[in-house]
């Protein structure tokens, strides 16, 4: 466990999904501290609640109980608008599917998050830089339909970084890619983690990908177990 003030801290997070039968306890009193600049993988079998945990971290979902602090601030006290602003400025998301807007070019897709606070020339330059950084300088004006799956996922990564977030949340970012593609993307994410000083939290079921991260946690029976590193 790090002595620094954690960038994100989850305390006694519980998530219960009511169902037709017994309610499903997906997360049981989960505690997690993520320090700035670290890279962390959360692994676990399908349906164990990895994505739920990531969504709670990303304020896309709320816990049944517990607190979520980011940089010492309780995220659960934020209203909808503040949470959206928080996600826009401080978080970046990468999903298993790229969710690029098919009607926009690669660069435009990267710039979409900047629309929230209006696009600037600076953003455009940064978008170009990021696309260059992810190796798509020559494909900047291509539309998603003209890109491969790996390329699309790289665009999604660039999009996640456009507003210089402090925390990058990746939900199965390599899930739809080949092994080589997955390793390339993970390498890219880790390089960006270092270069841009962005904290990286990735949910994956690929042990190979997880092993490349600084810390590895396993979500099992609703609780987090440290497999490697010093998180939790």
């Amino acid at each position: 466990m790090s002595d620094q003030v954690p960038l994100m801290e989850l305390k006694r997070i519980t998530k219960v999904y009511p169902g037709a039968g017994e309610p499903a306890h997906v997360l049981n009193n989960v505690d997690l501290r993520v320090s700035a600049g670290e890279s962390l993988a959360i692994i676990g079998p399908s349906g164990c609640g990895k994505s739920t945990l990531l969504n709670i971290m990303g304020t896309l979902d709320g816990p049944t109980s517990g607190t979520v602090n980011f940089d010492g601030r309780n995220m659960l006290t934020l209203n909808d608008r503040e949470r959206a602003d928080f996600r826009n400025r401080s978080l970046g998301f990468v999903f298993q599917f790229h969710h690029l807007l098919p009607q926009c070019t690669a660069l435009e897709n990267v710039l979409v998050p900047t629309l929230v606070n209006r696009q600037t020339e600076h953003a455009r330059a940064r978008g170009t830089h990021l696309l260059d950084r992810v190796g798509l300088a020559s494909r900047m004006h291509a539309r998603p339909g003209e890109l491969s799956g790996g390329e699309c996922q790289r665009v999604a990564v660039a999009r996640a970084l456009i507003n210089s977030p402090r925390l990058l949340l990746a939900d199965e970012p390599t899930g739809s890619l080949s092994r080589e593609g997955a390793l390339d993307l993970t390498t890219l994410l880790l390089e960006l983690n270092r270069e841009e000083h962005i904290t990286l939290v990735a949910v994956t079921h690929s042990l190979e990908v997880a092993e490349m991260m600084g810390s590895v946690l396993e979500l099992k029976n609703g609780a987090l177990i440290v497999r490697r590193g010093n998180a939790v």
Partner: protein
Amino acid sequence: MLGLVARSLRHYWRMHLALLLGTALATAVLTGALLVGDSVDYSLASFAKMRLGQIRFAVDMRGQFYRDTLAERLETRSGANAEAVLRLPGIAIAQSAESGDAAQVNQVNVLGVDSAFWKFSEGISLELAENEVAINEKLASQLGIETGGELALRIVKPALLARDAPLSQSEDDTTARARCTVKRVVADTELGRFSLTPSQIPPYNAFVSRTWLQKLAAQEGRSNVLLIGDGAAGTQLEKALRDSWEPEDIGLEFLTHKSGVVQLQTNRIFFDPEASRAALEIPGAQGILTYLLNSISCGDQRTPYSFAIAGPAPPGMRDDEIVINRWVADQLGARSGDRIEMAYYQLTASNAYVEQTRAFTVHSVVEMNALATEKELVPSFPGLSDVESCADWEIGMPLDEDLLKDKANEAYWKEYRQTPKAIVTLKAGQELWANRFGNLTAVRYPGDAARVDELREALRNGMDPARAGLYLAPVQERAQDAVSNAMDFGGLFLGLSFFLIVAALLLTGLLHVFGLQQRAREMGTLGALGFRQSRIRVLFAVETFIVSVCGACLGVAAGSFYCQALIYGLGRFWQGAIAGAAIAYHGGAITLLVGGLVSLACAMITLVLGIWRQSKRSARELLHLDFTQEPAFREAKQTRFRLGFLPWLGLAAAAGLVTLSLLQKGGDTSLAFFAAGALLLASMLGLFKRILRAITSMGQTPLSLARLSCENLARRSGRSLAVTGLLSCGTFLLFSVSSMHVDLRAHARDRDSGTGGFALIAESTFPLIENPATTLNEADVSGVALRVRDGDDASCLNLNQAQNPRLIGVNPKDMIARGAFAPEAQGKALWQLLERPLDGGAVPALVGDADTAMWTLKKNADPVTGDRIEYRDEFGNPVLVQLVGTLPMRLSVFQGSLLVSSDAFTRLYPSEEGFRRFLIDAPDEKMAEVQSRLRGNYERFGLEALPTVQRLEDFYAVESTYLAMFLVLGGLGLAVGSLGMGVVVLRNLFERRGEVALLRAIGFERGHIYELLFIEYGTLLAAGLGIGAVASAVSILPTLMAAGTGVSAGSILSILLLVLVAGGGLTTAAVLGGVRMNDPGALRSE
């Protein structure tokens, strides 16, 4: 395979339920519309049955009469039930039991019947004594009286010869009045609606004892309607009538004179053409024409008011020679070879008597005793022959009171009575005195009483009774024809509901396509598993067919309720459309089947097209289809290449049409403008499609929410276009139709409007010989008197097809002088068409207005190629009336009538005496006063005067109701279209749930997403509304350009509001719901 279908039906039940409901909606609307048609037809047939009961044929002599005994003879010969009826126009007055006010009802049919009349009905027997009356439900309701109540009936006392005929009797009071007790209120099903005219509007009927009515009308033993029931076919009846009729039945009689002359004469003074022809064809016939001269003069000597006779002139006398009697020769001092001049009146078509003169050379002088035969054989003229003094003459010619008192003439009258003072040849006499009533007053044959039978038989054999007024009309057959060719309400409602049906089908198609897209991978999997394309299509088609059949069945049942709702609407809110007739629901099995099958076919075509389109793709494509993208970009690109010019062509055509229409002077350009509007609509939709496609190449513009929204529109341009198209078509139709409301008052006083610029229109129950406007003695009040021959009402108030529309006799010169009913430049030529001789002796007629020609008569009216309608003249002779033109406005006070010249009118119907319709000019400020004075002065004649614009509004109520109905049904269609838009929005959001969730994930607030989506769908809504509004603005240009248009800002705002509320509301609901349903989980599940 069926197992797979069953499982799919179960698994995708939501999708199938939506399809089923969509199909059911389309079926219900279509079947309901057809059922309305069925119900109207059924109701009209019921009305026809009620109107005629078991009456199959009728002889309707109107202004002429026959002896009652003819009915008995015909019944004996034919075996068919034959009944004589005396029908007279009347007025009924009663004190309302409820209010106590006196109520007067004009235009009442007073029907003299005996108890046998009721055999034509079922379950009623009624014997009416003197002063007893049975009235129908409509009259009872209007008068507010019941059985046992009292009413006064006023009838016109018919003259044997029209009162405007020369030598007819002039009476001060031509009406008779009697008080009656209501013995029974006759139900509609008991022949209460009896009428020989096909109409769904019941007449006002008052049934009284025939003998009593005959006595009241001074027509003992005479009737004018002969009704025949079942029992004999038409040809048998005609033969029976031919065998049983006698010349005396129609007023012909033989007189014998001791001088060895048998004279045939008629109680109508002048012989009708058929009698005249047949009588003159009998060997030895000598035609006689007797006439009253104004004067005979020789030099400065003159004798007034003298009878002259044409025919029995000395052999060898020339046509310019005259025989005078001794008394005249003495009075004038005239001798053989002297020139004398006779003055006489000539009757014009407009009933004016114009004095004419003609000079003759005295051929010889005949002694008074040689004229004894003539004195005794001169026909008896009522009002003249039976008075003692010339001063007491009462005849239908203007007479100078001072001249009537001429002492010498008075002495002549006392001694010689009607003994002719002069004799000319028949040819000369007919040239001078022939008039529309005839050119013979008697026919003489040599012989005595022994020859009468032979002559009667020769006459009977020589005459065709049908041409003498005894024309047997197959009224039952005509009623059926009128019903089967009646206004097609099924078609009308189908037209009115068309947009609703199309909207329902489009919605169904959209739902189906979405469902198919949802199942694209299933299709692909089946293909990958080795299913042939055709088999996959069949599989899906069978599934769709089962759902559609269920939908159609449900729709048929719902259609029945929808029809009943429409009928309720027709009875409650849209009475104008059916002129107040009570329509009963009637659902024919065939109609239900047709409605169901047609809807099923339409639904299947729509749905199978979707299946066919999607299943064209390979299994690989189907497995990886991304429906967030336009699926057929490449094909669309090729189509655009080939057909890209079409929108521009459409725009050019629309501009051309508008320009041509603007350049065209006069005429109705509304259809051309509507077509231009429709072209513009299609072109703008084409351009909108191109704009949507062009948006995909907008990459150079800065990224913004607005651009993102636009690009989203372009992603599914087909769907965007479908929604915009539906909304724009709905808006276009609703705007265009709502603007068709016409403000009739705006131009009501213009001469070229449908009122002819006249202030009032008046109608009398009894004919007037004079023009009531002139009797008011107001310098600024004048009028035009019109003759009326009742016929079928061809206005839009009659749902039955009019076969022989009402004829109105008009003097073209009157209309030309006033410049009425047509623009100045065209008016003269138009009215002169009525005086144009036509091939085959056809009578030229103008149709009362353009709507009558186009919608109710459905005939071509053209000076050269105009359609011809067969009429029967007064005597039953077939006459062709050719439609040579139409009054150049859509709606006029003459709607439902044909206009013929008064000359032609009186030639065809000489017995239609006087005038019954009047157009009156009066200043606005005097209108109410004139109306009131006319009503007061002519109350006894049942004269009703009302503003001409009110009459137009009465007619317009039908069209106005159709428009209202269209707006309601079109509005429903628009609502369904808006529902379609809501469905599209929801579907799009469902497909884009990952995109929306991502936007939320990367920090977009809900507000941003709403903004994005509202820009997107608001653009579609605005485009739909804008395109529809612009196109409709073109289509309503003629209305907008006309001063005082009926385009109501209120109705336009209402429609805008409707579209905004329906389209905007449903879109908003879909957007709000769609965004809420997008959760973060969507980011993981593709």
